[in-house]
């Protein structure tokens, strides 16, 4: 174990040294200083192990024992527009930013004439135009950084940059599509997305992940979202990578005064998936909603960790995470809610519900509420179970066949989360995907 950890650190240190050599003059930039901090932080601890509380239920040993090569330059990798069909939500008129192995593809993206006050494109380009963005937005989380986030920073090159200025309302959703195109060697794909909504700005972003090819890849994405005062952001994430890929996604959100933020994290693919979603209230009277749906079977492992930090008074948070697990699939849910001493009148509600369709599927669920204020309302609840046989009988007693009854109830359980997605085109796509995945009373793999 120790040996492989040391090897892993050496492996990424070696990749980093090579990366640095290729940078020439750019190694003195503020961005590169962050990268150096990232590799140092990663090298200090390496990948987490199940000895660590945050990773108790999720072993990343398969990731730690694979030599992934970070993809550092753009290569279209043979992807053509026709490959995108199944991933794209809406073509005409809306912003689509496509990333191949973490790098912006100008040719595959479509950026219509942007309204005044809206920027959308590549983070690399944005950083080239304004190097100060790096230290302003991309610095490590002062609350501490996860090793995966450090690794992302170490090789930070590109990702999406979306900015909506104060008062601007963008009606059409922005889609950020990341495709992993596998090759013979295992690839490390690390997009870094930055989404900034100004005061009173409104935007919906759909971040989706897919793959081409059957090879092994690790997507290690970091998304940072800043919601200005009075702003409203919906962030929907759809993870549809293949059964051989690993996915670690970190989403970090800061909410301004009287703002609202909604996240819907939908997981349908991947071998090992870990989503870290953390939201911090920076201003009062803001509202944060975190929802999630994981549908898994086979030997898939889907781990959702959320953190909501009620750092200021008068904020509201709602959380609903659901899982449908079949086969030998495993689920993990860990929901932390901090209510700081000053955060009086906090209203926080967390719900985690899991439907187990097989005897071998398991879930580890852990609410973690740390409350230091006394005038607050915090509730949490977790349920784990099979389909309610009384419901099944009720449907059958009306003429609906047993299999259809089970499918209908499973779908209804899952669609509860899908219905919270406000982006119509995405909700319709998710509906269709769920109908395909949930059949014959089982979860089926991608078709």
């Amino acid at each position, binding site marked *: 174990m120790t040996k492989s950890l040391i090897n892993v650190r050496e492996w990424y240190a070696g990749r980093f040294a090579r990366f640095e050599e290729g940078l020439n003059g750019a190694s003195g930039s503020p961005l590169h200083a962050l990268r150096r901090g990232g590799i140092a932080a990663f090298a200090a601890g390496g990948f987490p192990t199940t000895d660590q509380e945050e990773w108790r239920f999720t072993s990343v040993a398969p990731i730690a024992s694979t030599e992934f090569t970070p993809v550092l330059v753009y290569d279209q990798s043979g992807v053509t527009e026709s490959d995108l069909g199944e991933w794209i939500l809406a073509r005409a008129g809306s912003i689509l930013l496509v990333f191949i192995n973490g790098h912006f593809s100008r040719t595959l993206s479509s950026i219509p004439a942007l309204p005044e006050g809206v920027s959308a494109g590549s983070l690399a380009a944005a950083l080239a135009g304004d190097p100060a963005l790096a230290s302003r937005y991309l610095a490590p989380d002062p609350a501490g950084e996860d090793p995966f986030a450090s690794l992302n920073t170490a090789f930070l090159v590109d990702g999406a940059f979306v900015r909506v200025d104060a008062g601007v309302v963008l009606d059409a959703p922005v889609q950020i599509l990341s495709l992993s195109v596998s090759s013979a060697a295992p690839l490390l794909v690390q997009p870094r997305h930055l989404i900034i909504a100004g005061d009173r700005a409104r935007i919906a972003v759909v971040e989706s992940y897919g793959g081409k090819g059957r090879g092994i890849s690790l997507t290690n994405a970091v998304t940072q979202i800043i919601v200005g005062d009075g702003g409203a952001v919906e962030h929907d994430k759809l993870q549809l990578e293949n059964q051989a890929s690993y996915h670690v996604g970190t989403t970090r959100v800061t909410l301004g005064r009287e703002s609202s933020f909604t996240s819907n994290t939908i997981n349908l693919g991947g071998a090992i998936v870990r989503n870290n979603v953390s939201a911090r209230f920076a201003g009062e009277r803001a509202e944060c909603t975190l929802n999630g749906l994981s549908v898994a079977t086979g030997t898939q492992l889907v781990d959702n960790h959320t953190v909501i930090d009620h750092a200021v008074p008068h904020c509201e948070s709602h959380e609903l995470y659901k899982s449908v697990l079949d086969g030998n699939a495993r689920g993990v849910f860990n929901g932390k809610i901090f209510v700081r001493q000053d955060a009086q009148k906090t209203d926080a509600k967390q719900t985690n519900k899991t439907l187990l369709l097989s005897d071998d599927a398991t879930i580890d669920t852990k609410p973690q509420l740390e409350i230091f204020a006394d005038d607050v309302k915090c509730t949490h609840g977790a349920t784990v179970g099979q389909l309610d046989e009384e419901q099944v009988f009720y449907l*059958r007693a009306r003429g609906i066949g047993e299999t259809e009854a089970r499918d209908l109830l499973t779908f209804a359980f899952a669609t*509860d989360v899908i219905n919270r997605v406000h982006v119509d085109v995405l909700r319709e796509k998710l509906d269709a995907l769920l109908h395909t995945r949930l059949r014959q009373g089982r979860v089926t793999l991608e078709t």
Partner: protein
Amino acid sequence: MSLLEVRNLHAGVQGNPILEGINLRVEKGEIHAIMGPNGSGKSTLAGVLAGRDAYVVTEGEVSYQGKDLLALSPEERAREGLFLAFQYPVEIPGVTNMYFLKAALNAIRKHRNLEELDAMEFLALVKQKMKIIDVDQSLLNRPVNEGFSGGEKKRNEIFQMAVLDPTLAILDETDSGLDIDALRIVAEGVNRLRSPENAVVVVTHYQRLLNYIVPDFVHVLIDGKIVKSGGKELALVLEEKGYDWVRTEPGAVSALAQEAGS
């Protein structure tokens, strides 16, 4: 051939006998009331007829329109025209009444080699049935029974009955938990759905529902057996004298024998 014929039915749960030799014959156009105290086996009988698998039939047989009812799955029974109005209708979050009823009706139609109804045709049918039962259209778009009051749930059962148009409806304690207004609405719905082509079995503890749904026959179920059968006036006697009267009345056993032999 009777619509329903129950012969010497014995059934129980986990080895505990509950029904101990039920005999019952129901013809089209009839309304039967099965009355009995708590624990007498009323709901077990309704459950066995609808196909609840918690109950194990140990003896006897049930023929429905000449078919062996006990050999059919719950959904097959429903498709053959049997309907159970639940004592405790289940809430099904995430499934709208509309979706649920359309799926149910089309499963039944498919079984009968009838064309499935599309959304427009279904809506037209539902609107017509809503007038009969007096339910609000908003009910259609709500998840099945979710957040419904007790009265709304029971009314929804009768509304489903109206849409699915069963040949044999079994109302399991449909009156329980209803105030007098809700009771009247539910009963009126049942009366409007009555026809020479269908039959209703009303399972109830109290006589009051029978003020509104007037039965042709009343059967008294005690300790898993029908101990007395008679006309609608029997319900009134029961209301006045209580179930203990039947237990202690000497003629009860001979009445049972008479009924079984008739």
